[in-house]
Each structure stands twice: as C-alpha cells, then as structure tokens.
C-alpha cells in the first residue's frame, strides 16, 4: 500500500507548488466525493492538498455587482451572503439541493464542478448564470467558462497540477434572475434524473432580452443549450416561445438509460422541467417571487 501524505497550505502559491510536485496529489475541499472515492478505491492519491486553510478559498466576495466564490466555500455558507442569494438565487438553490445538510456543510461548488458528474446539481445553474472559473496551475492563471470544465463523466479539462480556485458570477442586470430545478423520485438526498438551470433577463415591457438554458443528467456532461435560450429571446415567454424552447431542449438531450430513468423519459422531462424553471426565473426577474 502506498503511503498518503496530507498538506494544508496557507497560500495559493504553496498549493500550486505542492500539486505541481506530485502528479497523483488530489485537492481536498469538502471531501464529500474524494473521501468516498478513496475509501472505495476509485481514487488512490499519494498526497492530499487541503485548500481550506487558504483564506480566499473559503470566502464569498461581492465587488461592483460581481461575485467571487472561493472553491472551498461550502454550499450552506453561500446562504449567509444575502447579496449573493438575491442576485443568483438559482445558483444558491442548486448548490443547496446537493445531499443533506451534513453534506452541504462541507460540499463545495468547486468540488461539484471538478467531480464532473453529468448529474451534478450546481453545474447547470452555474452554466445558465454565465459563470466562469479561475484556474491556477504551474503555468499560471486562466479563466474559463464553467461549461468548458467538465469534458466527460468524472473528467475535466484541467491539466496536471491545475486546480479551481474561484467561481465568478457576472453582474446581474436589472429585471434579471435565475432558477434551478431537478427531477428526482423523492424530495431530498437523491441524484438528478434531469436538472435544468435557466437565467433570464426581461425589458420593462416584460419581453425577454437574454436567456441561458443549461441541462444536467441528459448528456455525458452538463450542457448549455444556446438554441433554447434563443427561442425565448424577443418573446414574452408565451406558450409558443416556451414550446420552442422545450423543443430545443429535447433536441439537445443525449441521455442514457439507467436505473434512475430511461433516455426517453429524461428527454421528455427535460422539456417540462426547463419550462417550469424558466417560469420561476421570469417571476423572480419581475420581482414576483
């Protein structure tokens, strides 16, 4: 058996050096995926780099309407930032559907993203929000859209030694909001059969001027569906526009059959869920919810 070492760096630079020095090292934030994977033998790192002692990793920072969420910020910690909850209710609600209270007190959006589950709850909400992530590594810093991070189930586009340090949410325009819904057979503690995140901006007359629709659990990764967002733009979210959006959603689905649902069910449900999510986002944008 290989021996395991534990590191708790205090600075980002130290974390970068530790990860660069050991290609099998794993980043620990909430540990709700990593520790389970280590116990099950699916992950066998020789070193763990716990990033929770780097203070910026555990913070939510608002700056001129933008938000930076540290990669190790627990899901429940975001609930304590009123401004974030008001600006991005869909992102916060998606992260707070994951697991139980016990799990959410540890689990992070950074971890949810890098675990790259096709059914991750926070990823579609972040994609709909137009969020980006700040990635650091041996060759420097880069910022990429969230949708470019997961590339396959359990795989990300991060290269050796790189890790996510921060999730960035853009300025929320006026009359704009977001929502996330998932379909599961029960109400808590389950994995999405379908997930839908929608972010919508309306003008003063209630006409949609921008929309982003993202889906989870219907493809190998969470996906952005630009055609679905485009179907809403210029409309007042009337029946015809919503049907066109749902049709675009169904056309983008590439799900698998598994014990949680058939591909056919997932595809049909994705359209239904995207409509419901869009209505909630629009109601919030109008200040009605």
């Amino acid at each position, binding site marked *: 058996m290989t021996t395991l070492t534990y590191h708790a760096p205090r600075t980002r630079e130290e974390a970068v050096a530790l990860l660069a020095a050991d290609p099998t090292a794993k980043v*620990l934030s909430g*540990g709700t995926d990593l520790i389970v994977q280590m*116990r099950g033998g699916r992950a066998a790192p020789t070193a763990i780099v716990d990033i929770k002692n780097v203070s910026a990793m555990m913070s939510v920072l608002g700056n001129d309407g933008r938000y930076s969420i540290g990669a190790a910020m627990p899901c429940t910690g975001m609930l304590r930032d009123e401004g974030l909850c008001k600006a991005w209710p869909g992102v916060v609600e998606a992260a707070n559907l994951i697991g139980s209270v016990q799990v959410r007190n540890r689990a992070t959006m950074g971890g949810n993203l890098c675990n790259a589950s096709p059914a991750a709850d926070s990823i579609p909400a972040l994609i709909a929000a137009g969020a980006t992530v700040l990635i650091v590594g041996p060759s420097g810093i880069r910022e990429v859209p969230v949708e470019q991070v997961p590339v396959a189930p359990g795989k990300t586009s991060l290269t050796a030694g790189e890790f996510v340090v921060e999730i960035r949410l853009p300025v929320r325009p006026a009359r704009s909001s977001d929502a996330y819904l998932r379909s599961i057979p029960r109400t808590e503690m389950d994995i999405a059969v379908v997930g839908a995140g929608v972010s919508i901006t309306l003008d003063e007359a209630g006409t949609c001027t921008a929309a982003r629709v993202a889906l989870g659990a219907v493809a190998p990764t969470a996906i952005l569906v630009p055609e679905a967002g485009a179907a809403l733009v210029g409309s007042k979210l009337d029946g015809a526009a919503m049907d066109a959006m749902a049709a675009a959603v169904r056309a983008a689905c590439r799900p698998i059959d598994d014990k949680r649902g058939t591909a056919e069910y997932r595809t049909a449900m994705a359209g239904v869920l995207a409509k419901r999510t869009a209505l909630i986002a629009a109601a919030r944008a109008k200040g009605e919810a």
Partner: protein
Amino acid sequence: MSKIAVSTTVNGDPAEFLCDAGETLLDVLRGSLGLTGSKEGCASGDCGACTVMLNSQMVCSCLVLAVEAEGKSIATVEGVAEGSVLHPVQRQFLEHGALQCGFCTPGFIVAAKALLEVNPDPDETEIRYWLAGNLCRCTGYDKIVRAVSAAAAELRQDSKAQRSAA
C-alpha cells in the same frame, strides 16, 4: 510511516491523538478517543449515523479526515447530556419511543439538537428536510418527527421561563 499529531477540542475538553493521513474523524472518535456513540452506517455520507458538530456545523464524521480536526472544536452525542441530565431532545426520544434498534439515534440526536439551535420552532416539513440526511430503517420517522417537535416546544417553554425569571 510516522503518524500525524492532532490537537483538537472534543465536547469542550482538549483532546490529542495520532492518526494516519487517510483516517477519518469517525475512525479516530471511535478508535483512539473511545467515543463509540457516533456510528458507522454507510461510510459514504448517506446515512448520517456518524453526525457530529465540527466548529458548530453538523457534518458526517465519515467524510472528514481526522487531520482536519486540528485546532477545531468537535461535539459528539456523548456531550449532549449534561452529566446525568438528558437534553430535551434525548428525553423526548425516550418519551415518544422514537427509536427501535437505536443505531441511527446518536446521529438523529446531534442533528435534531443542531436544528433547534438555528430554528426553535420548526414545522413538520422543516424537521423532515433537516433530518433527510439521517436514515432510520426501524421507526418510519413519524415518532422521530414528533419527538423533535416536542423537544422544540419544551426548549421554547424553558427559554420563556428563563426570560420571565430574568
């Protein structure tokens, strides 16, 4: 391989232990610290039988590395009663028969106490959602929910009495 020395606080008292990097907090609580109240049900964060408070946040101790406890404060089910005086949550679990085999009970007690600290008057839905990460295969949950509700009422009564005495 050399062990890692960890200094922490458990149920208000300083505690020190040696562990391997991969050991969980639950392993150490039940092993070197001899606190076997927290149970290992699933070892994957699904059942909540290992629920403890870590810096006042409830967590599954099977999903925390023991080394992460360095400098932190841990509260387990062993610290819930004050000496021989049971906490209202514990007493109401007994009154309502909110357990059968008892394996899940320590996790439920810690989680229910944590709920009442942040929400002194939870309705049934709030109780059920808060306790969704604690699985019980015996009771069907109904008596647990009633016990937590009764404990909440008792604690509200206590704090009212304290306020009028002050």
